[in-house]
Every structure is written in C-alpha cells, then in structure tokens.
C-alpha cells in the first residue's frame, strides 16, 4: 500500500484567516457557551456563601462588587452573554429554517449589536465602584 500523508489538525488553526462567517459564529458561540457554564458554576459557588448566613453573603458580594476588576469582568461577561444570546437566537431561526440566506449577515448583526449593548451598559456596570 502506498503510505499517505496526513496533515493533521494543526493546519486548521493556521487557516483562520480563511474561515467564513458561519465558522466564526460557531467558534464564538462555543467559546461564549463555555465561558457561560464556567460562570454558572462560579456564580452558584459565590451565591452559596448565603448558606453561612446573611452577613457573610452581603460582605462577600459587596467586597467583590467594589473591585474594578470584577466590574470589568462583569462587562466581559455581559458581552459574552449577549453574543451567546443573540447568536443563539440566530441559531434558533436557522433551526427553524428561517432566513438561511441571511445567515452571514445575521452573524455580523449579532456582533455589532453585542458591541452596542455592551458599550451602552458600561456606565451602569461601572457605577458606584470604588477604586
């Protein structure tokens, strides 16, 4: 038998420049999804300080919320969540067979909309933070 040459998966990543809208959407959706599960676990962990009493909970939350990093991370989380939601809606429509021709445009729209929402909510998210 002739041997054959397998180029492996490495090359996939070196081709990122050639990815199309649908592929980017897939990658972003995956990434945001994973971040969201990660956050869900952390979130519950933080919230469960409530089990050790009201004071412990309020202190932890307020301590965290007063940190700028946490606020910035929250903005990031918002971005991730908003994109996941918008693209998730896009995917739901695709699943229903609606607007397949516009799938690339709807992806770009989700990206832009995410940006807009995130920028618009920065003041709210950063309000009252002590530096």
């Amino acid at each position, binding site marked *: 038998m002739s041997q054959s040459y397998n180029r492996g998966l490495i090359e996939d990543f070196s081709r990122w420049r050639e990815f199309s809208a649908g592929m980017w959407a897939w990658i972003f959706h995956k990434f945001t999804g*994973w971040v969201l*599960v990660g956050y*869900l676990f952390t979130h*519950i962990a933080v919230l469960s300080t409530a089990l050790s009493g009201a004071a412990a*909970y*309020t202190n932890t939350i307020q301590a965290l919320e007063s940190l700028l990093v946490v606020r910035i991370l929250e903005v990031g989380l918002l971005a991730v969540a908003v994109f996941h939601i918008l693209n*998730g809606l896009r995917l739901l429509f695709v699943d229903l067979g609606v607007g397949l021709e516009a799938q690339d445009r709807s992806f770009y729209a989700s990206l832009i909309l995410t940006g807009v929402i995130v920028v618009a909510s920065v003041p709210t998210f950063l309000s009252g933070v002590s530096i």
Partner: protein
Amino acid sequence: MAERYTSFEPGGRRWLWQRLTAAFLVVVLAFHFFLLHFLNHADEVTFALSQARMEQLTYFSLMILFLVTATFHGVNGVYNALVNQGLSGTRKTAVKAILGLASVLLIVQGVRTALAWAGGVPI
C-alpha cells in the same frame, strides 16, 4: 463496502431540549440581567433584597427552573461539543458520568442556597 452504523442512540431528544431550554433562557436570562444589573445596581446587592424576592413562590420557582435549564443547557452543550470533536468509547462514558455528577452537584448546591434565602420552600 461501508458498514452501516447501527448505534441508533437518537441524539434528537437532547438536540431538541437544547433548543427548548435556549428559548426559555432567552427570556429568563434577560429578565435576570435586567433585574440584577439595571433595576438594582450591583453594588446594592444584599442578602436582604435577595431574600425578599426569594420568598415569593413565583420568583423562587422561576429561579429553580432557571438553574435547572441553564445547567442542562450548559452541560449538554459542553458534552455535545466534545462529541463533535470525536469523543467516543470509554472516555465518552466517563465524560458523561462526570458531567452528570457535576450538574447534580451544581443543582443541589443552587437549591440549597435558594432555600437558605427563602427559609424553606415558600408556600
């Protein structure tokens, strides 16, 4: 000639639930964000406020449902992603078990927290 695949483990049910939970999450998550970040600002969160909300049965059950759907949606999503990458055999079974366990723990912990707030099931 190719063998025909016979492992008819329909992935359809999970696929459907992933969509259904997603549709549900859109609504609840939007509500959640709105309530906790825009109506009530983050730096104002206190145990008392959460407690006040949790003591209403509707809110309590909504949050439990939120937790369960989000967990299912998230964990199932992760599992799917792994299967898409060709996960199979014993490793697949192991991953399934671990993910299942993690979800149960997460839900149990979440429910305990909610109960702590509400001080028992708010009936």
